[in-house]
């Protein structure tokens, strides 16, 4: 048997075993539910590290993988459609490459999911029994969706050559379908998690009141659906970009470098576009948490988690700086981009100041002397930066700046030939300044109104930014249609440090996801299901931030180790037969042109 075939068999078998294990585990949980609960202990202890840590680590890993295999196909299919409509082979190649990555991670995801279920059933039997009593009907939906998803993705991947040419539309349809199925899986799983945070549809004693829909459609379900969907795209983009960076750094030929440079760029572009809207989705989620339970909201924002948001701000600041830096470095490969270099210091200054404002803590760490000098625990000047008004303003300005970077990048090698170009550009700059002015105005005005009004201001700020983005793009696209080029992009001619930035972004984002997961879970404090089912296990304390950070770091490292291994496996099939299998890799301008 060829090694590839053998691998595929291993993957298949592992995958089937995973599904089987999952089904068996669910079924074994059922009799337990029927029996007298007293016969089962409420908890069992996981050896050495304890049950909580075991569940935490596996859940985070599972989520990382799941996010990847749900996020990547979303833009893979979009890229495939672009390739299909424009008949540009490199898009089709890229899409195939992306699905290949997804595919490689598929069985690991399923296995981790089964393992997680095992841990719940085995170590938290009472909790799991309770969840089953509410959500049992959804288990079947979940399993069915999973089967459907698996087979669609298999067809999508293996049918690439078969369903090409005139049958391409069927193939694209498969891609779309697998995304619909994937998203549905996400949405079902989210109903369980969000129910634990913000239970709904149940009686005082915790029993289901009406149909299971009441429990599914709880306060945080929709916001989490949206938030996770967008975050998955960002995550998928960064991981795909990191993969490309890895291949770039290992590349031996110019063609390969050009190809993976381009792939890294697209991955980062996808991540960045989705990332820009992520704060808004997060904001909505925060509001819903407040609306569900004020105490929970305050615990989250002002209580023991307030420092978590500073860490979050630092991570997001790094993401902003990193993605802009990557764009600026990317201008190196574009002839004609030199004229935009002069903007970099200004954009960098805005980003840096925004970063500082955002990372200013509300609860400062101060020594006694410092507190005396400040006349309180609040600094009379820095205190202004510690509150939401300042932070929203900073973030919105950072988003605008990042968008500006992108706009400049876009036009780096193009000179518009439209007669109205001056007017167009004037309007674009105007849009930037008006949006910035609105953001700053409401930011400052926010200090003079009561907080309930202030909260509403963030909507205007967001609206101004999104409006500016929309307006600028509507002008930009026609303005540069048929533009004169100052030279083709020399893919592959980018300093190696840019590729390390891509890897850094992927690691940072993964870490950030771990942190936010901790926040989401941690605000339940000593509850399994908030306000309904208490956590009476030995682990019923919310761990300190430092401890959480260590766990998240270890799990992130394990995740990347696994991903590297899986990607390496995936790469095995290409060894020694470049272009022989699957789609031939297209040449990309910048690499040597001789295989065209």
């Amino acid at each position, binding site marked *: 048997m060829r090694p590839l075939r053998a691998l595929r068999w291993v993957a298949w078998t592992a995958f089937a075993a995973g599904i089987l294990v999952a089904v068996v585990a669910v079924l074994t949980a059922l009799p337990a539910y029927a029996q007298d609960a007293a016969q089962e202990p409420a908890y069992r202890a996981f050896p050495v590290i304890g049950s909580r840590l075991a569940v935490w680590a596996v859940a985070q890993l599972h989520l990382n993988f799941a996010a990847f295999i749900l996020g990547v196909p979303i833009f893979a299919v979009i890229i495939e459609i672009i390739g299909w409509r424009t008949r540009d082979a490199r898009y089709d190649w890229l899409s195939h490459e992306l699905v290949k990555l997804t595919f490689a991670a598929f069985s690991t995801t399923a296995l981790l999911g089964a393992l997680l279920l095992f841990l719940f059933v085995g170590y938290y039997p009472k909790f799991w029994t309770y969840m089953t009593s509410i959500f049992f009907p959804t288990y079947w939906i979940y399993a069915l969706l999973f089967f459907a998803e698996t087979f669609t993705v298999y067809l999508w991947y293996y049918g690439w050559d078969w369903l090409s040419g005139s049958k391409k539309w069927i193939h694209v349809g498969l891609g779309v379908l697998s995304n619909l199925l994937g998203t549905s899986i996400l949405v079902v799983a989210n109903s369980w998690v969000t129910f634990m945070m913000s239970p709904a549809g149940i009686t005082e004693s915790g029993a289901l009141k009406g149909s299971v829909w009441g429990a599914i459609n709880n306060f945080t379900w929709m916001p989490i659906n949206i938030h996770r969907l967008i975050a998955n795209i960002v995550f998928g983009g960064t991981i795909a970009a990191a993969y490309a960076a890895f291949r770039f750094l290992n590349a031996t030929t110019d063609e390969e470098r050009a190809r993976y440079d381009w792939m890294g760029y697209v991955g980062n572009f996808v991540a960045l576009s989705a990332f820009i809207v992520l704060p808004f989705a997060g904001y909505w989620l925060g509001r819903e948490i407040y609306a569900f339970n004020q105490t929970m909201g305050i615990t989250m924002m002002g*209580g023991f988690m307030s420092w978590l948001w500073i860490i979050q701000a630092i991570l997001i600041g*790094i993401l902003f700086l990193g993605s802009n*830096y990557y764009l600026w470095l990317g201008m190196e490969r574009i002839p004609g981009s030199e004229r935009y270099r002069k903007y970099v210091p200004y954009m*960098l200054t805005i980003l840096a100041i925004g970063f500082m404002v955002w990372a200013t803590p509300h609860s400062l760490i101060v020594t006694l002397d410092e507190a005396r000098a400040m006349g309180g625990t609040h600094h009379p000047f820095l205190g202004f930066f510690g509150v939401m008004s300042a932070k929203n303003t900073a973030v919105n300005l950072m988003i605008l700046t990042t968008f500006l970077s992108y706009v400049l990048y876009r036009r780096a090698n193009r000179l518009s030939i439209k007669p109205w170009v001056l007017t167009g550009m004037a309007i674009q700059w105007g849009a930037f300044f008006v949006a910035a002015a609105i953001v700053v105005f409401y930011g400052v005005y926010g200090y003079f109104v009561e907080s309930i009004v202030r909260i509403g201001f963030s909507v205007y700020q967001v609206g101004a930014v999104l409006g500016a983005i929309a307006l600028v793009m509507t002008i930009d696209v026609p303005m540069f249609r048929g533009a004169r080029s100052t030279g083709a992009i020399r893919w592959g001619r980018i*300093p190696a440090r840019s590729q390390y930035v891509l890897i850094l972004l992927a690691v940072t984002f993964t870490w950030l996801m771990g942190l936010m997961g901790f926040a989401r879970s941690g605000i339940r404090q000593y509850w399994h299901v908030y306000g309904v089912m208490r956590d009476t296990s030995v682990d019923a304390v919310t761990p300190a931030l430092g401890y959480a950070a260590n766990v998240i770091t270890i799990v992130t490292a394990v995740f990347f180790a696994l991903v590297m291994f899986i990607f390496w496996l995936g790469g095995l099939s290409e060894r020694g037969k470049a272009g022989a299998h699957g789609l031939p890799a297209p040449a990309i301008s910048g690499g040597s042109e001789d295989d065209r």
Partner: protein
Amino acid sequence: MSLFRSRFVQAVLIVALAFVVLRFGIRPPAPWSVIKIYMTVVFLAVLIYVSADADSWRSFVGPIRSTLVDPSRRLVRAALAIVLPILLGYYAYTQAAATPEAPAELRAVHPAPPGSIQFRGKEINISGVENPLRRDQASFKKHAAAGGETYIKNCVYCHGDNLDGHGQFAPALSPPPADFQDPGTIAMLQEAYLFWRIAKGGPGLPRESTPWNSAMPAWEDRLTEEQIWQVIMYLYDATGQQPRRWETAH
């Protein structure tokens, strides 16, 4: 002139300038913990600035490389070989040496309030509750004045006659008394939150506010329910702040 063209010199100058501004430009001085965060950001930004394109990177690395390898720079190299370890050693010393000062600490200033509290044997809801005295607009003045009296009799020693936390006792207390003029205190809290804090004081703080070294007394045995609501009204009235309202669930 050409000296300032060098990216290396620029980078050093920016970092130095940023430090001076942050350390001495902010009055009263910003806590070290914050300066550290800020300087990290500045440092990152400067690194990005010098490496954002190939020319600039070359200009930045040039002097470093020549200092490390050029024979003509032997003296500088030797000087650095002595000065850098000494600086590092000094830094290590400042970190390790014991100081009489208590270490900087982090406590949650505004922990989550309980859903309800026991006040003199009666259960009072905190979550979602508005100040009951506000319903009667006509006697607003009366209540605020009575609250002012309560404040002067009980709170002024710590929270100060300007409500800015600079009372007579304040210099002795850590954490210092809350500054009600600050937008980061009562302006972002609901009145019921204040009710809880005033009734239960420092001793009533939850776990996340460890260490429980707040000197804020628990007033439940000395003030009546009405007096507490009155003094709250006074706090907002006198500072011109608006209390945060509870958001309504939709």
